[in-house]
């Protein structure tokens, strides 16, 4: 008996040791969680020295009765001289900037001229779209981008929360706004200032990004660990560090080059985990991939926009709205059908920080049309080609749509969507795609064949915001798993735990099974024959 006890001990000892080591592993994790967050280039609010800032109420020039918004800008610039030169260099003002596109050279790109698969584009509809422009009066091509009093300082610097731009008024404020009150209470941009456009882009809350949402004005840690009002309560510009009005950060819906970006590493460093294996993942995996496990966690975002069904009017000939079960627009006569979703699992792509775009002049080469495409692959290690950084795996919101295009010229179409008046050809008023397409393309001096149809499109929005609490970040097994892992669609590399060679697996399993069977047969035969040949035992002889 003792022999067998020793035997089984020898066999089970390794298992005990493993169990022991496994136990130690979890203790280490607990210790790691208590570790202080590693931060650079950032001072926690609790450790900051409160500074008294300038009190604009004391400036005489702001006490005057402002005739209109332009005179406020004049007053601002009388002290903050030359700031307009900084503003006029920004893409917030120009709605375009020079970007190098692969195969297309330097192109001036921006909201001004790029198409998306939401409201398609601003051209011809500036009167309503430029409600999100930091200026006054951009109603058509005649807008003077060199006139400094056209700048709207207040939309970004209002700290009262009372400054609102009027709908369909080319960026002018509502008549109800008390300009004296607002001008006397200005300061650094708060979340509300950025959010009014960046949360509401595309005509509703969280429509476009999926990770920028009015919930971030006052949210829990579950929604956003950085901006939560229960915690660090950061404003946008704490990360989007701004100097001379150049706000860092860019979204690849509009931009292309890997420059002027904001990164997690700027504060969290390139080795934030205190664990070599996790830190090594940073070589090829964006922080966002694990730390934004789902997007649209507070409010739903638009996933699909089908323009082709737009234009159905009710019995009286009026445009209509139909909500879905959650109260989001399911159908709008002016825009077509939508599908919304919340707590969405991102799609994952290799991305090296370089995007390309389907420009309005570009021929459609494949369907679905890639409105913007993210460059990158496993083999792109950065130094060998366009980007200085290796491609990383990024979580992306893919917005899918069906929108108007010209099947003869094989290009996308910029329709004229908005106008104040009926009869100007704006689709949202007159509901005639043909005329809207003609008007829109004429406005841009681009050819239109007179025929239109709808084409499927895809647009890629890398996710950056609404970082989840660390407990909710992805675990190893979310990707390192045979079936249904997060990276199941990225087939250009070998991922341990996900991939295996079927042939090797079969060879290996056959090897094990045949060993077992062989041993078993041998043992059985040995037992039986052992009795038969008992007398033959030379030891007993």
């Amino acid at each position, binding site marked *: 008996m003792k022999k067998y006890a020793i035997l089984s001990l020898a066999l089970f000892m390794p298992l005990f040791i*493993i169990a022991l080591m496994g136990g130690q592993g979890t203790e280490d994790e607990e210790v790691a969680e208590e570790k202080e967050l590693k931060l650079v280039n950032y001072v926690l609010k609790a450790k900051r020295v409160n500074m008294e800032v300038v009190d604009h109420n004391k400036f005489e020039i702001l006490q005057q009765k402002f005739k209109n918004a332009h005179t406020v800008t004049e007053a601002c610039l009388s002290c903050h001289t030359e700031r307009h030169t900084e503003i006029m260099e920004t893409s917030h003002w120009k709605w375009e900037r020079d970007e190098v596109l692969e195969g297309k050279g330097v192109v001036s790109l921006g909201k001004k001229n790029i198409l998306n698969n939401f409201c398609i584009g601003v051209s011809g509809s500036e009167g309503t779209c430029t409600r999100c422009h930091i200026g006054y009066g951009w109603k058509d091509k005649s807008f003077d981008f060199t006139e400094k009093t056209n700048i709207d300082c207040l939309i970004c610097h209002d700290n009262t929360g009372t400054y609102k731009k009027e709908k369909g008024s080319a960026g002018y404020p509502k008549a109800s706004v008390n300009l004296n009150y607002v001008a006397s209470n200005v300061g650094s941009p708060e979340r509300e200032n950025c959010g009014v456009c960046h949360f509401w882009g595309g005509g509703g809350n969280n429509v476009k990004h999926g990770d920028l949402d009015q919930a971030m004005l006052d949210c829990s840690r579950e929604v956003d660990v950085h901006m939560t009002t229960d915690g660090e309560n950061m404003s946008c510009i704490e990360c989007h560090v701004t100097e001379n009005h150049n706000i860092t950060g860019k979204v690849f819906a509009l931009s292309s080059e890997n420059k002027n970006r904001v990164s997690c590493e700027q504060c969290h460093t390139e080795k934030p985990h205190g664990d070599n294996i996790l830190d090594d993942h940073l070589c090829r995996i964006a922080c966002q991939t694990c730390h934004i496990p789902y997007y649209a966690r507070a409010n739903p975002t638009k996933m699909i926009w089908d323009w082709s069904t737009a234009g159905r009017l009710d019995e009286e000939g009026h445009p209509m709205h139909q909500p879905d079960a959650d109260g989001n627009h399911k159908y709008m006569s002016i825009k077509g059908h939508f599908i919304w979703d919340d707590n969405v699992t991102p799609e994952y792509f290799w991305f090296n920080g370089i995007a390309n775009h389907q420009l309005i002049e570009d021929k459609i080469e494949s369907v679905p049309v890639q409105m913007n495409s993210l460059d990158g692959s496993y083999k792109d*290690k950065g*130094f060998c080609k366009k980007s200085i950084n290796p491609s990383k795996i990024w979580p992306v919101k893919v917005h899918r749509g069906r929108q108007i295009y010209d099947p003869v010229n094989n290009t996308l179409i910029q329709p004229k969507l908005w106008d104040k008046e009926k009869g100007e050809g704006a689709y949202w008023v007159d509901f005639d795609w043909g005329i809207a397409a003609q008007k829109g393309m004429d406005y841009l001096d681009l050819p239109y064949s007179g025929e239109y149809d709808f084409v499927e499109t895809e647009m890629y929005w890398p996710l950056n915001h609404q970082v989840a609490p660390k407990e909710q970040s992805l675990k*190893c097994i979310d990707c*390192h798993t045979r079936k249904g892992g997060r990276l199941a669609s990225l087939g250009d590399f070998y991922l341990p735990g996900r991939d*295996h060679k079927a042939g090797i697996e079969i060879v290996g399993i056959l090897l094990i099974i045949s060993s077992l069977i062989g041993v078993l047969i*041998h043992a059985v035969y040995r037992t039986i024959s052992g009795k038969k040949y008992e007398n033959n035992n030379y030891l007993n002889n």
Partner: protein
Amino acid sequence: MKKAYLYKAYERFWHWSQSTLVFILLITGFEIHSSYILIGYESAVAIHNITAWIFLVLTIFTIFWHITSGEWRQYLPTTVNLKAQIQFYVSGIFKNAPHPAGKTLLSKLNPLQRIVYGGLTVLVFPVMFLTGFMYYFFHFPMQGVELASLEVIAVLHTLGAFCIVAFVIVHLYLMTTGRTITSNFQAMVTGWEEIDEEDSMIIESEMAESARALIKSSNGKDRLKQPWKRKQKTVTEETLQD
């Protein structure tokens, strides 16, 4: 029946620590390969990596031990008795025939053991170390030395692991084919194994041979500190002359 001291303390320490490490590596390794979920992927990776380092250290010590003790010669492949050994496992064993290859100090392993253990040592383990550490250090394609893909090393590493599992199964079974079911196991625990008369005579002559050599080179006496010398004090010049 006589007993002979076949497995020295370091050999036994090596054998058992290596078997423990191999068990740990197999269990965690196949979890990393997603063959099953047992202790969690993160823990499996952490344990696998630590164990690999320990295994590397043990292996370096063991190589050193084998070279300095000359025991590496035990693993030199031979065809002597190879056929007989195979025949023994295929038929002789069922008829309670004697083991064809006797165990002696200079040849503790039968010809099949020599080939299999030798093969593990010079082929499978080095490949596992090499691919394992490439996996560890070059898991992401980065600047400097880099791999175009993990695929080749991952596949080799997996194949090696399957071979080791098969080895473990057969090895555990063959362990029971000694003189009695547990005699091989006991030998690897205590170092002492029962051997038959014929082999014990060979062992004695081997010892005598060594002792003679020892005595001849009495100047080098202090340098030769063979364990058997301490255990077998009875073998001296006088007993040899009897």
